[in-house]
């Protein structure tokens, strides 16, 4: 393979990883947009999604599409429960309190799953998806799995964009995100809207979890790093901005892939945090955000 083919290969690999980051980042960005909360537990919702998919396919022998959809529904239920039980009672509390609670929920889910399913890594059953490798452009490869990643991410992203722009619930979300007091004065049920936001965000994270399970091993701590990185992706794109999260996720996936290719694979995990610190210093509102100053 020539340099150019290898570059295309790396970009394709990065696209698949970036798609996963994008799906998780969407949930972060929506929740932050509406509640100004970094929902640390979001990466663990993704982990729970991966385990739902595992048990449905490996133990109950469900076909993959059914397992995918069922896992997404289960994680959205989990997201709603987390919001109701842990965050809603703290609406009027200082933000620090809710942030610490989010850390607590994250640690709780991780350790609960270690107790419930053991810390050992697992693999989805072989043959859960048909395997096929495509080749083009003089040796550049991608698999049916990659196509699935791209397809699911594209469908969900555009579906979400349509939902937020064109449905009543989506408009309510935008209204609450813009100004929750005003939205509530206009008759929008803020509680229900927040609940829905968590449901939708967790739905997407659940999809990401099941997708990743078809390729990599899963374990109860698998959500930590992708969760943090997806948050970075959300900040990169401009937190609260839906297309920003997708672009941020894809950029992060590509940069990681290129850094590994350049021979710094040991520093791969540091890339996201370096990007985070640079963006916070240079342009805290992210690529697509606008700046605002605190009122005195």
């Amino acid at each position, binding site marked *: 393979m020539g340099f150019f083919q290898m570059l295309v290969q790396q970009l394709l690999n990065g696209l698949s990883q970036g798609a996963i980051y994008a799906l998780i980042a969407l949930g972060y960005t929506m929740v932050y947009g509406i509640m*100004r*909360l*970094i929902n640390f537990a979001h990466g663990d919702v993704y982990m729970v999604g991966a385990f739902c998919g595992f048990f449905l396919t490996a133990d109950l022998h469900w076909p993959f599409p059914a397992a995918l959809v069922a896992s997404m529904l289960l994680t959205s239920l989990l997201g709603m429960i987390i919001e109701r039980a*842990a965050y809603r*009672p*703290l609406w009027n*509390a*200082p*933000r*620090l*309190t*809710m*942030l*610490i*609670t989010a*850390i*607590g*929920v*994250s*640690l*709780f889910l*991780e*350790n*609960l799953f*270690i*107790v419930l399913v053991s*810390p050992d890594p697992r693999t989805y059953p072989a043959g859960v998806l048909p395997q096929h490798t495509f080749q083009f452009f003089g040796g550049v490869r991608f698999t049916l799995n990659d196509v699935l990643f791209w397809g699911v991410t594209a469908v969900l992203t555009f579906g979400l964009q349509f939902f937020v722009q064109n449905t009543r619930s989506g408009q309510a979300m935008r209204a609450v995100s813009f100004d929750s007091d005003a939205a509530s004065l206009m008759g929008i049920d803020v509680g229900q809207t927040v609940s829905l936001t968590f449901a939708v965000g967790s739905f997407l994270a659940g999809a990401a979890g099941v997708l990743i399970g078809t390729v990599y091993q899963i374990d109860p701590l698998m959500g930590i790093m992708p969760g*943090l990185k997806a*948050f*970075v992706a959300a*900040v990169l794109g401009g937190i609260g901005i839906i297309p920003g999260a997708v672009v941020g996720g894809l950029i992060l996936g590509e940069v990681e892939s290129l850094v590994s290719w350049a021979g710094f694979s*040991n*520093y791969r*995990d*540091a890339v*996201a*945090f*370096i990007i*985070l*610190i640079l963006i*916070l*210093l240079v342009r*805290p509102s992210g690529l697509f955000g606008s700046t605002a100053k*605190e009122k*005195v």
Partner: protein
Amino acid sequence: MATQPAKIPARTSTAALYPWRSMGISILGMVVVWGVVQWLSQSGVLNLFITQTLVIMGINVILAVSLNLITGVTGQLVLGHAAFMGLGCYFAAILTYKMGLPFPVGLIGGGLVAGLGGLVIGLPTLRLRGDYLAIATLGFGEILRIVYQNWDYVGGAVGMSPPQLANWTWVFWLAVLSVLIIWHLVDSSHGRALQAIRENEIAAEAVGVATTRHKVTAFIIGAFFAGIAGGLYGFYNYAFQPSSFDFLHSFNILVLVVLGGLGSITGSIVGAVVVTALQAALQSYPYIQNVIFALLLILMMLFRRQGLLGRYEFHLSMIFPGLRREEKGGHSDGARS
């Protein structure tokens, strides 16, 4: 303005009469605690496990009190305290174990490097709003961890195995010193300025508090003591790895502070002691223990946000009224925006 004060329950009087008696009794009490433990563990009454637990308690007290200065007193949420601890540990090991300097020099050197780390990390990030600061400090911690992992001189992912140079005496007295210094700091004009930043940054700036400089200074001091704790940790445990200082460890330190009560120095001590004791008691069930601590953290936030002690300071005078020093603001429910 020279009218006779009607009722001033304040410090004018105590300033004149610095409580030598109280200080004497406190020192005596601490010598007794140190001596009893020292004697019992030397004579084998306390087994190694209990002695170890007491040493870890002391290290955790330093970590909790130093994080409390940054997060509880100054109101800056930091999720990378273990990174400062790691800096102290690595550089203490480099200075002592690799370069052959005496242990105390290495320990202080490690603390200074950690403080320098606080300056380097704090200067750019402390301008950020609360939750962005949290995530930025977390990011710095992870970057450092990855750097250690790839740095062969300090053992890469395997880490280092320095000799056991720290012991109960070192840890106990350094913990006492750390608590005393940070307590004094909080109870001074500088400490009040830090609390003002937590309460209302805009008003603090408007009455002449250089908010950024104060935040960075609190950061440096907190990082310095975390570095000292890190050095003690490395030289007590025989071994440490990059993963000893990851953000899960930072979360654990935060748990100590939150459970004890954000802003209360004595609360942090109680938090560190209680949590370390519980961890030791549950150490055969490490995962269940973690589930319990996570639940405790959530329940604490939901039902007793102020922590075990709130901002209330526990003082010996509550047991021995003869030691009265000064009354502070009293109870509070920890609510603020």
